[in-house]
């Protein structure tokens, strides 16, 4: 782990570098250490898979990396920011708004908004004009294969389509870092495959550092790098050649 993280890094440059992360949660009278001195890094253009059983600390890790949950110890250097946790809360929000995309297991779409509006809302907060936001939202939704569903509300969309809207919402900002938390676990095999391919493409074509937390071992086939975490400790870190044509059998 050498060199510094950069905003517009080439494939392989560091996007995130975290050192000595410790996170404890209070449980009754004692503390449970969820992250135990974890070092982590992720590179531009990589699809980095963080795997582990539930309770292993993988979700806490990406919460700490993305500025959502303050770790007790350790530092996170990310893109052009030295030590993310030294920034104020609003600066961290701004950093995420400018650079980070998020995809969750639940789709978390506003029931009142159509697909294109879901994406537009975030872009407008980023400061795009109405027309630019609409154009960008349409392009991104077409990219995830929803060009024909632009004006449907979530109630009219299937689970896979909803997750694709959520992905479009995260990708439309052109994030340098994309966090995904169990993005396929609410989906069947076919839709899961569509989703993981989109994440793969975000890394390969847009050069984003994609960090995907999952417990589904079948997703490994698409990953550049697979990190296993257990009981708050990284026990395994392998690089591998991804197979973009892998297929995901039905759950």
């Amino acid at each position, binding site marked *: 782990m050498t060199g510094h993280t950069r905003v517009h890094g080439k494939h392989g440059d560091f996007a995130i570098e975290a050192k000595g992360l410790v996170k404890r949660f209070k449980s009754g009278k004692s503390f449970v250490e969820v992250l135990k001195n974890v070092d982590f890094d992720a590179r531009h253009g990589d699809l980095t898979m963080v795997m582990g059983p539930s309770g292993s600390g993988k979700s806490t890790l990406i919460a700490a990396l993305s500025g959502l949950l303050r770790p007790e110890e350790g530092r996170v250097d990310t893109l052009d920011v030295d030590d993310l946790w030294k920034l104020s809360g609003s600066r961290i929000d701004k950093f995420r708004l400018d650079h980070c*995309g998020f995809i969750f297991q639940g789709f978390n779409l506003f029931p009142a908004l159509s697909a294109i509006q879901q994406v537009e809302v975030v872009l407008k907060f980023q400061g795009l004009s109405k027309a630019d936001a609409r154009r960008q939202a349409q392009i991104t939704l077409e990219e995830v294969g929803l060009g024909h569903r632009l004006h449907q509300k979530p109630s009219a969309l299937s689970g896979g389509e909803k997750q694709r809207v959520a992905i479009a919402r995260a990708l439309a900002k052109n994030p340098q870092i994309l966090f995904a938390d169990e993005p396929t676990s609410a989906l069947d095999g076919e839709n899961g495959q569509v989703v993981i391919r989109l994440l793969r493409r975000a890394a390969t074509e847009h050069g984003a550092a994609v960090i995907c937390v999952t417990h589904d071992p079948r997703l490994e086939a698409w990953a550049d790098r697979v990190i296993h975490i257990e009981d708050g400790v990284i026990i395994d870190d392998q690089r591998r050649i991804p197979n973009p044509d892998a297929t995901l059998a039905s759950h």
Partner: protein
Amino acid sequence: MSLALSTLLYEWRRYMAAVMALALSGLLVLAMTGVFIGIGKGFTATIERSSADIIIMQPGAKSLIGGPSGVPRRFIPLAYRNPAVVEVQPLDGAGGSFQSVKNVDPTMSQADRAKMGAPRQEFVQTSIIDTTPGAVTIPTDYSQELVDALRQPYTVAIDETATRKLGVKLGDRALYNGQTVTVVGITRGYPNMMQATIIMSRDTLRMVGQADTGPRVGPLMVKLNDPSQAERVAAELNEQGDGQWKAWTRQELADANAGAMFEEGILVIIIGGCVVLGTIIGVAITWQTLRGAIMANIKEFASLRALGVGMGSLQWIVMELSFWVGCVGVIAAILLTLLLQALALMGAVIIALPLILLIIVGGGLIVIAMLSGLLSLGILKNSQPADLLR
């Protein structure tokens, strides 16, 4: 369309409780205030709808109701000195007992008549018109037939809402202060919930012995050759009167009459109580509804937080949402009040809704909604994106 407005429209059922709470708070205040203004209007409708452009009263008068309003008779020729004035008539009126004599011998005692189920003797307010064609005292919505009928001696007209109370119908005879009068006209749109009003000609009033014949007369009703000049002529008349009288335009007087009711302390207490009650109920229900609605979308808000949308922006969304809830509440309040107004009119109760009242109450409702929004902002703290990572 904004996120807040789309959410309100799409999930309107969720916000219904808040909208109804606001609407009912608004209805409470609008209806109570409107009824009191309406009571005043019941007494002054005949004057306010006359063709008088200017009314001249004593300098100290604050409205037509109460206060010294009559003037010396010699003011009538003085008012004519302004070239714009074409007609001046003193307002006259009286009050008296009114007894239906239909089917019942009027010479029987009250007790005997009551046993026979006869209508009770009622005390009525009497207003007059002049029956000369186009007279200034004739309300503009009176038909020529009505004026012609009232020109006959000992004839009266009553409003349709008073026929049941007075126990008479068109063509019936009745006793007014012991003298026989005939009901020759039924008016529509002149209800008075406090006291029935009967209309007669100035000549009939004189014949029943109640007309002003002395040196003092009622307020002077003044007709101009050009009604659009009322404000200018009123100013001229005031200058001419040199402090002896005060000339009001009809609109000024109508506004003053509406406000006059609120000089009664008890009315202020009743309406003040309604405002306080309405505000508390409105804020409590709207606040809780907004909290619930925000909690229902808390994951979506949290996902926006994760994408970097700041807490301030989410608070802004909530405030915008409460503003729109307030606007819908105002519309609902006004519609409900109009409905109640129509129902009340059937029972001869006027609910007067001047625009200024609607604006004040509407603005108040939006303030209540925004206040509820402010109170709900705390709930946004639950939009922790880290909670979505499970």
